[in-house]
């Protein structure tokens, strides 16, 4: 401030100070003014004087503008327009669907989005070929018109969905950090967060991911049904989590065999028995904490194969790759003829890949999974993950061999794009 050092300057300073101490009324006035301003200018309201000037300018420049607009129109196609529940929509607007009904968003190319009740989304931007949509929370259904130039993107939390012309349902829960996309028609590519590089999700498939648990599943229709049955029977969740493995304990090297579990060895009451109940309730972190507190090794020594898979999962989610490894290797060591050994191998491969970045080891574990159960439920995923692991480990030749095998078996599989990229 540059008030003169005079009595009037001193008076002015005192006046300003007094205003500065009356923040309440002025703040209220500013808030009220903001509401008035934004409400009155929502539809482009302007002062009468401004409108008159604008009208005069428009008349004077109309001929030139028409020529310019026509030239621009020919050179650059118009952005897609859209409506929200029948009213003209604008990019950079926040959409919140009411509780009683969904919100309909219709684009000028025929693409339609249905934002489910109480869900929130944004149309971030549009161009001539598509739009960028952000799903902030909740779910939406999309029916995207496919053309050779279609370019749509949806963002849900840390995940990006590239769409080229599809029907799908998208869900993102910001509180639990859970993501899912179910494709009914066509395909999408999902990238970001724990999914990593773009993965294809095709018609009939669902990709579910949990950021908090650092896990994701790519499920086809048959497997989704199997999971529902398993959930109903309180079976342990599918093992897709990481666990770290020692290739020396692969079946070819195994020499230590533990007897199969019998009723006498079925888990009974013991000091750490509470972890089982916690795990069945879905509280895997607490389950691991209880098991670890009571001697993890002894817990593993008395666990069944299913329980060892669960312990491996619980340890992984808790950030303990070492304990996850211990549980999964215990399964493979104690139950050499149990079919879940292959699942343990797959899980060991995932933790080597995702958490340890030990790609060569990961490739070996995925290969073990395929070898031990060539027609098992995880074999397609194991083939695909093996391609990635070999590529990342620098074994280009191995990656290409595996890619050819994969494409021969699963030409439309979720890793088909990765396989083709390796072969280029």
């Amino acid at each position, binding site marked *: *401030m*540059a*008030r*003169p050092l005079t*009595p*009037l*300057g*001193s*008076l*002015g*300073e*005192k*006046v*300003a*100070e*007094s*205003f500065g*101490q*009356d923040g*309440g*009324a*002025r703040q*209220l*006035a*500013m808030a*009220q*003014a*903001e*509401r*008035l*301003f*934004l409400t*009155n*200018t929502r539809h*482009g*309201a*302007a*002062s009468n*004087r*401004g*409108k008159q*000037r604008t009208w005069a300018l428009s008349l004077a420049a109309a001929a030139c503008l028409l020529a310019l607009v026509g030239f621009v129109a020919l050179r650059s196609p118009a952005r897609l327009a859209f409506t*929200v*529940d029948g*009213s003209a*929509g*604008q990019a*950079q*607007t*926040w*959409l*919140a*669907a*009411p*509780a*009683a009904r969904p*919100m309909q968003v219709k684009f000028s190319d025929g693409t339609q989005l249905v934002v489910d009740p*109480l869900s929130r989304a*944004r149309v971030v931007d549009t161009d001539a070929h598509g739009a960028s949509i952000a799903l902030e929370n909740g779910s939406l259904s999309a029916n995207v018109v496919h053309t050779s130039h279609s370019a749509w993107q949806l963002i849900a939390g840390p995940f990006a969905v590239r769409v080229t012309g599809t029907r799908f349902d998208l869900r993102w829960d910001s509180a639990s950090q859970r993501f899912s996309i179910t494709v009914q028609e066509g395909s999408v590519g999902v990238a970001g967060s724990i999914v990593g590089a773009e993965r294809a999700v095709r018609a009939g498939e669902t990709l579910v991911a949990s950021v908090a648990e650092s896990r994701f599943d790519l499920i086809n229709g048959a497997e989704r049904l199997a999971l529902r049955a398993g959930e109903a029977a309180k079976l342990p969740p599918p093992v897709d989590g990481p666990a770290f493995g020692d290739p020396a304990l692969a079946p070819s090297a195994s020499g230590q065999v533990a007897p199969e579990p019998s009723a006498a060895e079925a888990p009974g009451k013991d000091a750490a028995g509470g972890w089982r109940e916690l795990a069945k309730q879905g509280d895997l972190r607490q389950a691991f904490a209880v098991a670890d507190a009571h001697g993890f090794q002894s817990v593993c020594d008395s666990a069944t194969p299913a329980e060892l898979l669960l312990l491996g999962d619980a340890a992984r989610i808790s950030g303990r790759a070492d304990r996850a490894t211990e549980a999964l290797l215990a399964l493979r060591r104690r139950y050499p003829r149990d079919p879940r050994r292959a699942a343990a191998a797959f899980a060991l491969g995932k933790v080597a890949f995702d958490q340890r970045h030990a790609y060569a080891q990961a490739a070996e574990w995925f290969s073990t999974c395929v070898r031990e159960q060539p027609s098992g439920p995880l074999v397609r995923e194991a083939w695909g993950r093996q391609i990635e692991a070999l590529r990342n480990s620098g074994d280009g030749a191995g990656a290409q061999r595996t890619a050819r095998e994969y494409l021969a078996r699963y030409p439309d599989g979720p890793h088909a794009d990765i396989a083709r990229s390796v072969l280029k």
Partner: protein
Amino acid sequence: MVPSRAAQKAEGVVLPLGFAGDDSALVEALRANHPGAKAALFQRHVGWVERIITHVIGFDAELADILQEVFTRALASIHSLKDPSALEPWLGRVATHTARKVLRSRTRRAWLRRFVDSAEEERFEPSASAFAPEARQALRAVYRVLDVLPADERIAFALRFVDGMELTEVAAACDVSLATIKRRLVRSEKRFVTVAARYPELKPWLEGGARWRDR
């Protein structure tokens, strides 16, 4: 403005998102009718504009309406802003022009105030109860004196002495030359001192010895 939960449950809600960018980008966004730009214009610059209005006009019950008018005028004439990076001083000019309009309008209606003194009292009512009555009276007296000055002299005086602007800033805000603002200030100072002599509550201040007594 965030809708109430009840409102959101009943109807869908469409709200503009916030705008991020400097003033030059903000001006371009306003010209492009970016839905978040209007709110950004207001939120970024209302403090500066409100200070000008309040310092020139004083405490006023119509402050919200005056502020709304400033920003509405600014939005309507945004295309006339030649240098988008000079948005803030340009808004200052819009604010002073609006203040001048309000003052002249009130001057024309001055005869009504003889019959509605109570309304004027309410218009000027410092809500700061932290001040002693003497200080509140002195503040009121300042603006009674300023009411006597012609609008252009009053604006120059308020911007220089109350807001503390440099002479060049006052000239820019009033959209006149430095020489013109100096002449206005000379006249306003003489008038202010002459009229203020009629208000005993201002005497201590003009003698430089007054102190605000806070509760």
